[in-house]
C-alpha cells in the first residue's frame, strides 16, 4: 500500500512528507531513570497520529515536555516551523498546540459554559483594563458563547450548561476538557487518553468528532490504550517503550510488528479477554 505520510522508508523516527511537529534528541531523566529518550520524531500535519505504549513508556512525559509543562534535560523541537524549546506552556497553547490531561482538569467550581468560554483565545475581556469596559468585549463574549454552545451540543453536554463542572461524571469531565481545548481552534490538539472513562455509546460519537477535526484541517495526536480506537481512527501510529520510539507506521502494519507485540500488545492482543482462560494468560506471561 502506498503511503502518503512517510518520506522514504518507514522506521522509528522516520521523516514525514509534511511534518507539523519535529522533535530532536529530547531526553528527560527522573533520578537515574531515563523516562523519555526520543532521538527523532515527526508528527504529520493534518493526520491523526496515535501514541501507544505500555504504562511507564514516557508518553505522558513526552506530552508534558512538548507542551512546556515539564523541562527536558536535552533536546529541541519545533511546531509549525517555530522553535518551541523552553517556551512557556501558555505560549505553546497560544501558538495553536493545545493539550488535555490524563487526569482530567475540569475547573470544578466554574459552570460548564464558563469552562468552555475560558478556552477561547485572544479575548479582550480577559485583560485587566479592558475587562472594566463591557462594550469592548461583549461582542466577542457572545461569539464565543455561541461557539461553545455548538460544541457542548456536539459533546452532549448542553443539558449541563449551567451546572458546576464538579457535578459532572468522570467521563463527562473528559468530554468537557476536550471540548474546551477545541474552543481555542487549535492547529494541533494533543489528547491524553481521551476515551478513558467515557461510556461506549459516547465513544462512537467522539470518534466521529475526532475524524471531523481532521476534515477541518486540525492535526490530532493522542495517547490511548484502547486498540479498537487506535485502529479505527488513526492514520499513523507511534509506539513508545522505555522512553524510546520503538516503532511507527500505519496502524495495521504496526500492530503486526513483532517488536510492538512483545513490548505492548502481548500475544493475546486480538483475543477477547472473556474467551481466554486464566491459565493461557498466565502461560503467556
Amino acid at each position, binding site marked *: 500500500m502506498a503511503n502518503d505520510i512517510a518520506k522514504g522508508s518507514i522506521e522509528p523516527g522516520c521523516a514525514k512528507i509534511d511534518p507539523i511537529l519535529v522533535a530532536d534528541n529530547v531526553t528527560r531523566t527522573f533520578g537515574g531513570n531515563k523516562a523519555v529518550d526520543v532521538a527523532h520524531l515527526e508528527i504529520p500535519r493534518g493526520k491523526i497520529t496515535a501514541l501507544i505504549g505500555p504504562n511507564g513508556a514516557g508518553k505522558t512525559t513526552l506530552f508534558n515536555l512538548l*507542551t512546556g*509543562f515539564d523541562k527536558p534535560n536535552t533536546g529541541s523541537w519545533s511546531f509549525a516551523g517555530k522553535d518551541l524549546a523552553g517556551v*512557556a*506552556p*501558555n*505560549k505553546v*497553547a*497560544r501558538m495553536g498546540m*493545545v*493539550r*488535555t*490531561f490524563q487526569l482530567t*482538569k*475540569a*475547573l*470544578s*467550581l*466554574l459552570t460548564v459554559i*464558563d*469552562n468552555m*468560554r*475560558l*478556552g477561547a*483565545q485572544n*479575548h479582550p*475581556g*480577559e*485583560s*485587566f483594563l479592558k*475587562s*472594566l469596559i*463591557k462594550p469592548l*468585549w461583549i461582542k466577542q*463574549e457572545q461569539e464565543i458563547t455561541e461557539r461553545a454552545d455548538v460544541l457542548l451540543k456536539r459533546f452532549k453536554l448542553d443539558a449541563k450548561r449551567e451546572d*458546576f463542572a*464538579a457535578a459532572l461524571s468522570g467521563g463527562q469531565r473528559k468530554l468537557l*476538557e476536550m471540548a*474546551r*481545548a477545541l*474552543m*481555542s481552534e487549535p492547529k494541533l490538539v494533543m489528547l491524553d487518553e481521551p476515551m478513558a472513562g467515557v461510556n461506549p455509546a459516547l465513544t462512537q460519537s467522539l470518534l466521529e468528532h475526532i475524524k471531523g477535526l481532521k476534515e477541518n484541517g486540525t492535526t490530532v495526536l493522542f495517547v490511548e490504550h484502547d486498540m479498537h480506537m487506535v485502529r479505527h481512527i488513526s492514520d499513523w501510529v507511534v509506539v513508545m517503550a522505555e522512553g524510546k520510539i520503538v516503532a511507527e507506521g500505519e496502524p495495521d502494519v504496526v500492530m503486526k510488528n513483532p517488536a510492538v507485540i512483545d513490548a505492548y500488545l502481548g500475544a493475546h492482543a486480538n483475543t477477547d479477554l472473556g474467551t481466554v482462560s486464566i491459565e493461557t494468560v498466565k502461560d503467556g506471561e
Partner: protein
Amino acid sequence: MDLTQILLLPLSQLFAATTAAYVLCALGIALHFGYTGLLNFGQAAFAAVGGYAFAIADKTLGLGIFGSLLFAIGCAIVYAFILGIPTLRLRADYLAIVTIAAAETFRFVMVSGQLGPWSGGSEGIDGWGKDFYDLNPIPSAVYNVFGIPLTERQLWADIVGWVVVVICALLMVVLTRSPWGRALKGIREDEDAVRSLGKNVFGYKMQSLILGGVFGALGGVVFSLNSQTVQPTVFGTNFTFMSWTLLLLGGAATVLGPIVGGIVFFVIFLFLQNLLMGLQSSGILPFISGEQAAQIPFVLMGITLMLLVIFRPQGFFGNKKESQING
C-alpha cells in the same frame, strides 16, 4: 454598668471608619483567596504599607493629600511585586507562609531604630493628616447619628472611609463578573488547566495580588487617617486574622460578604467587649480581671473562625459549593 453605653457604642461600628478599613482589607483578601486561590496571610502588611506610606508622604515629604494617596498606592504596588515575583510560582501553602513572614518582617523593619527618623520607631508617626481634615465641608458641631454623638471630624472620616469601600466594591463587582474574573476563578480551580488554555497564569496572579493589596493599603490609609497616627503594633497578625474572620463570616467568593461580614463582626465584637467589661466592673464576673474581659472576644473570634471554616465555609452569602476550602 451603663446599658445604653453597652448597646449604643457597638452600633457606632455600623458606620465607623475603622470598620470600613477592615472591610477594605477583607475585600482585598476576597480577591486574593476567594477568587484567585492565593492564601495571603499577610494582608496587615499591605495595610501597614498604605498607612506608613501615606503618613510619611504627608508629614515628611509634604506631598499633600492626593499626592500621599498616590504614593501609598504606588508603595503597595511595589510591595506586591517584591512579594509576588519570587512567591507566586510557589504552591498556595508556601505563599501563605511567605506572606505572613513578610508582614511581620515589614512591621519589625518599621520599628527598627535605623528607620526612626522616617517611621518613628515603636512610637509610630502621629500629628499628620491635617490636610485631610481641612477638606472637611461639614460644619463644626456634634451630630446625633442614631443616638450616637459624633463630631464633624469623626463623621468626615467615616463618610470618606465608606465611600472608598463603595468604590472598591463596585470595581470588584465589575471585574469579577468579567472574563478577567473568570480567568482568576479558573486559576483558583486549577492553574495548569488554565495554562494549557493559553492564559498567562503568573500575570493574572500578580494582577490579583496587586489589586487586592491596593485595597488593603487603602484600608490602612483609612484606618490611620481616622486616628491621625500609624503605629506598628496595630498591624500585627491580629489585624490580618480579623480581616480573615470577617471575610469568612460574609463569604469568601463574594463582594457583599466582606462588607456585611465586617459590620456584623464589629458590632458583635464590640458588644461582647463592652458587655464583659461592664459585667466585670460591676462585680458580676469576679473571677476575671478587666484586662481579661477585653481579651475574651479575641478568643471567641478565634473559635468563630474555626467553626466557620469547618461548618459554614461559604459564610452568609457564598455558594457552599464554591467556597469549600478543600475541593
